[in-house]
């Protein structure tokens, strides 16, 4: 490529040469920008995993409770039943701990917790209300809900992909799992363990809250770029 070098002091021979230099210059700048963005990662986002299922259930006050009621809010879901003696007890403790730390997250949208009971036969509204009060649930932040067995199976098993099955002794086999869902109803994080790192859950609430607050106007494109380059937390 020796021919591309112009001798010092000689003017460009033609405008064609200038266009090529500009072209390569711009290309180099763009490439440098892309490399900088994907390595320095100025913005961290959570991946858009898949759409969370819609649901039409009733809550611990016996009132209608749907996925639409949670639009625009950041929600942590988990699943249990009030007669649980297995790992699901620990997952409820995790939810209680998260509730106590929600105020530390700087957010302009409401942050919510939702627990689904997989045992609608025994867990009516009164039972869920009593159990949630025992756990220290604040009814305006932490919702409890249940519904018909068929719908629960399609929402929890089909939608969230969490397996549960009733055993002969009336207990359930239930995989421990938590899901963080954004205001558009997209699952952004899942924690499939009975003892997730609560610091990480709080961090993820913070990332989603920051995305809502900062991805406006031109910054929307910066956030899209962060998704494109998989700038996920490590």
């Amino acid at each position, binding site marked *: 490529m020796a*021919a*591309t070098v112009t001798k010092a002091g000689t003017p460009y021979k033609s405008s064609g040469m200038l266009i090529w230099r500009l072209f390569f210059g711009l290309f180099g700048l763009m490439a440098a920008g892309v490399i900088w963005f994907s390595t320095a990662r100025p913005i961290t986002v959570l991946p858009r995993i898949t759409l969370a299922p819609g649901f039409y259930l009733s809550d611990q006050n016996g009132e209608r409770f749907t996925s639409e009621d949670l639009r625009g809010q950041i929600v942590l879901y988990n699943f249990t039943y009030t007669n649980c003696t297995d790992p699901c007890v620990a997952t409820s403790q995790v939810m209680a701990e998260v509730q106590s730390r929600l105020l530390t997250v700087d957010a302009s949208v409401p942050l919510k917790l939702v627990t689904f009971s997989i045992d609608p036969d025994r867990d009516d509204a009164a039972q869920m209300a009593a159990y949630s009060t025992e756990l220290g649930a604040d009814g305006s932040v932490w919702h409890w809900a249940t519904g018909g067995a068929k719908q629960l199976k399609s929402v929890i098993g089909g939608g969230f992909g969490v397996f549960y099955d009733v055993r002969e002794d009336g207990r359930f086999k239930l995989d421990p799992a938590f899901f963080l869902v954004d205001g558009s109803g997209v699952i952004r994080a899942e924690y499939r363990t009975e003892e997730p790192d609560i610091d990480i859950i709080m961090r993820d609430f913070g990332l989603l809250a920051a995305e809502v607050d900062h991805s406006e106007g031109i910054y929307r494109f910066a956030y899209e770029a962060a998704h494109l380059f998989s700038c996920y937390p490590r």
Partner: protein
Amino acid sequence: MIHVDPRERNFIIGTTILLLIFGTAVLVSSFAFGFQVPAPVERLDPKLVATPGQSPWGDPVEERVRELAPNKYEVYILAQAWNFQPREIRVPVGSTVTFMVTSKDVQHGFRLDGTNVNMMVLPGEVAKLTATFDEAGTYNFVCHEYCGVGHHTMYGQLIVEP
């Protein structure tokens, strides 16, 4: 126009065309044909993976085919020298099945005939892919990473029932 030696220019053009062909092939295969690249979704301890209570692979074999919802299944398959557990899987026609495969010893493979499920199975990692079965029949799966003297006995069947 910059002067470039003709032979050099031919190479530049040739490599650019190759790059475009391969780039297009990647995009077409992923979007038009729906190829998925199996990614490790989870890491676990291969020594503990088959221990009851430690993971779904520790559950009894007959509980490893799980119905998440009508026509939606997940199967936890443990690959070991030299078999798959479970080695026979039954699902109804129209089912979407997610295969979660891990190894408790050495490197194995998991290839399900008639689908695009084709994964390398490494100890300590979970290989995950999903396939939908709209036609009844028997689909064979084999280990296609050489894993020792019993390698040829590592196979099983997925039976899609009408």
